[in-house]
């Protein structure tokens, strides 16, 4: 059987990041991650979104795609819609470094899809019961 997909799309605005966090927590709960792992996944999704929003050029929508397999969650976060110069970003490289550390430590695998120096998508996964 193929994996179940759950997708969430929100405007790329800071006020909606909270919604992606709560949805991520719900999804992680459903496949049986424990409390600490749920917190990790929630945080990782939020940091991936922050990285994509906080760029010189950023999208106006964000798509979060959860792919659920019995012992694994993979999450793809991608910018969608119009990519335009950014009025909310701090364009802060130190900031991006913080996000990167957090992502790398919370998830078992993280991949960045970069085009012309802009992160278009972040793909990450976490194994259940590790």
């Amino acid at each position: 059987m193929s994996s179940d997909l759950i997708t969430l799309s929100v405007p790329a605005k800071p006020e909606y990041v909270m919604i992606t966090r709560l949805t991520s927590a719900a999804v992680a709960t459903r496949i049986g991650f424990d409390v600490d792992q749920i917190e990790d996944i929630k945080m990782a999704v939020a940091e991936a979104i922050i990285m994509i929003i906080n760029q010189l050029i950023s999208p106006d929508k964000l798509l979060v795609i959860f792919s659920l397999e019995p012992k694994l969650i993979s999450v793809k976060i991608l910018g969608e819609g119009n990519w335009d110069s950014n009025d909310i970003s701090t364009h802060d490289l130190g900031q991006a470094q913080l996000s990167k550390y957090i992502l790398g430590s919370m998830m078992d695998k993280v991949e960045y899809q970069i085009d012309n120096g802009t992160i278009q998508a972040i793909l990450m996964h976490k194994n259940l019961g590790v």
Partner: protein
Amino acid sequence: MVLDERFDSVTGTWYISLDGEIDIYNAPEFKERLHQLIQRQSGNFVLDCRGLNYIDSTGLGVLISALRRVKEYGGEIKIQNLKPYLKKIFVITGLDKIFTIEVGNHEQ
């Protein structure tokens, strides 16, 4: 976000309680608030994080930015009562080395 703030003029310290979530949405307001306090009265900072449930990298960025200002006049920022999964983020990012992180209850 900021639940409570008071300046203790004997020790020259701002005592601040953080509450709920600090994230990309309210970080700008949090930054504004800390910078205002620093301008009102330069001093050390003690942040009580007992009620803090979440902080993301933008919240950490605000703390770093505040620390930079506080260090300019030789002050320090102490962070108290972090929940374990939030403490973890300070360790992961190496920020446990630039802030004074105190475990357990240090009420004044």
